């Protein structure tokens, strides 16, 4: 709502203005990135990035290829580590632990604990091909959350029903279409009762029709739960329908942040305008 803090012009934002990008509907700092930098070799992918996401907020990350969107999600999922900076989730730091009042690198146990609140759905589904659909969904609840097999299966069937695959519980992933696999992957993620759900271009490997089915499922999820969602997508209509706030990335920085109506209809940054034009031209 307060996109007015965003600088005009298309020069990259300074750190100060980047911090100002934390705008929109969020009420608190459930997730907080502070001065995060990350490089691969010589390639600086994230440059002193700071932003935060509120509890239950739905945030869409957009931006040109290579701008660092996936890197953000993968870092939150602890698949990669930042070179510097901190990430806080709730009261815990993701890669750090408070010891004697100061921050020390986190132990594996600490990371596992914090990671327990987060889960992710991938572009390539990544279902376990050696397990049937039902076991794909129950494996982690049983062995991570410690649920009983019955309880896990009951919940799994509910979720599979919800994503419209109640009748495919005993299929192997290879026997499903891409869209069906992605819906299973969503059910698998939800079965972990996550506080935070990360979605990285979950429809971009799918044909438009199948993609629509998946997006419908995600719309339902967004409507019927209060999970905090971070979502990278090129499906602008979906982003507009579902998200509270859109973060526009460019070259590892957030150059604009605003509610979807604002950012899609009256983007302040010239870079954002150009990006949106190219995306709309494609689809």
């Amino acid at each position, binding site marked *: 709502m307060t996109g007015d803090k965003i600088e005009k012009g298309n020069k990259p934002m300074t750190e100060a203005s980047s911090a100002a990008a934390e705008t929109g509907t969020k009420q608190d700092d459930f997730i907080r990135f502070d001065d995060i930098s990350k490089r691969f070799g010589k390639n600086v992918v994230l440059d002193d990035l700071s932003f935060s996401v509120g509890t239950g907020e739905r945030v869409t990350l957009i931006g040109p290829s290579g701008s660092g969107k996936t890197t953000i999600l993968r870092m939150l999922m602890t*698949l990669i580590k930042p070179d510097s900076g901190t990430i806080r989730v709730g009261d815990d730091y993701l890669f750090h632990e408070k010891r004697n009042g100061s921050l020390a690198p986190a132990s594996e146990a600490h990371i596992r604990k914090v990671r327990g609140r987060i889960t992710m759905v991938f572009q390539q589904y990544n279902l376990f091909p050696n397990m049937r659909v039902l076991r794909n969904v129950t494996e982690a609840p049983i062995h991570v959350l410690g649920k009983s097999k019955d309880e896990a299966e009951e919940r799994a069937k509910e979720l599979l029903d919800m994503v419209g695959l109640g009748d495919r519980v005993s299929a192997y992933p290879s026997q499903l279409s891409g869209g069906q696999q992605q819906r299973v992957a969503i059910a698998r993620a939800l079965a*972990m009762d996550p506080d935070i759900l990360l979605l990285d271009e979950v429809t971009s490997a799918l044909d438009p029709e199948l993609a629509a089915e998946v997006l419908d499922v995600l719309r339902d999820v967004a409507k019927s739960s209060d999970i905090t969602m971070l979502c990278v997508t090129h499906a602008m209509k979906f982003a507009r329908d579902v998200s509270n706030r859109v973060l526009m990335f460019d070259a590892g920085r957030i150059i604009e942040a605003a509610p979807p109506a604002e950012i899609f209809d009256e983007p302040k940054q010239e870079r954002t305008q150009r990006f949106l034009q190219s995306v709309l031209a494609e689809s």
Partner: protein
Amino acid sequence: MSGWNWDVFWDSVPDLLDGLVVALQATVLGYLIALVLGLGFALLRRSSKLWISVPASIVIEFIRSTPLLVQLFFLFYVLPEVGISFSTLVTAAIGLGVHYATYVSEVYRSGIDGVPVGQWEAARALNLPARRTWTSVILPQALPRAMPALANYVIAMFKDTPTLVAITVVEMLTVARAIGSETFLYAEPITMAGILYLVTALVMSWLARILERRFGQVRAA
């Protein structure tokens, strides 16, 4: 020298078949050891801790680049000296198993490396503990991938069983030599032993090919 003695040639078959059974026993036993130990080697070598993976690599490369024969001698003569004594067959199986574990570990390793990285990431996203990730996600996918190569090493191990003659395991070559020292005719039993080895090895690779084809179909389904 005297002419070819067909009687000795054919009469050697029953005794040689006993030897073949022993060779097969050593192969089966040895391969079981190789399968288990090889997995251990592969996991050690993949460890993210350098103080584990580097020594493991050195040991594996060392075992792999030194002769099976000498390793067998070492086990055969040195184990009893330090008070460990197994039957000759078990010693042989251990020797074969340790040696082949180094090959098998490479097979596992490429099987494991063949599991798409997305599978690791998905396991991580579900917060599966490391052990569970291995046992229910990675290995069930890596092992089938490794099957054909694993089958080939069974055959390779079988072809190495004549080496066991050096530590008095009564496999076919040992039998052939014994027949030779009784009859003073070496050519006949050794030739027959060679034929039996060759035929068995060819049958084994034929079976392996069938297995591979079957397996390929299962995977495709």
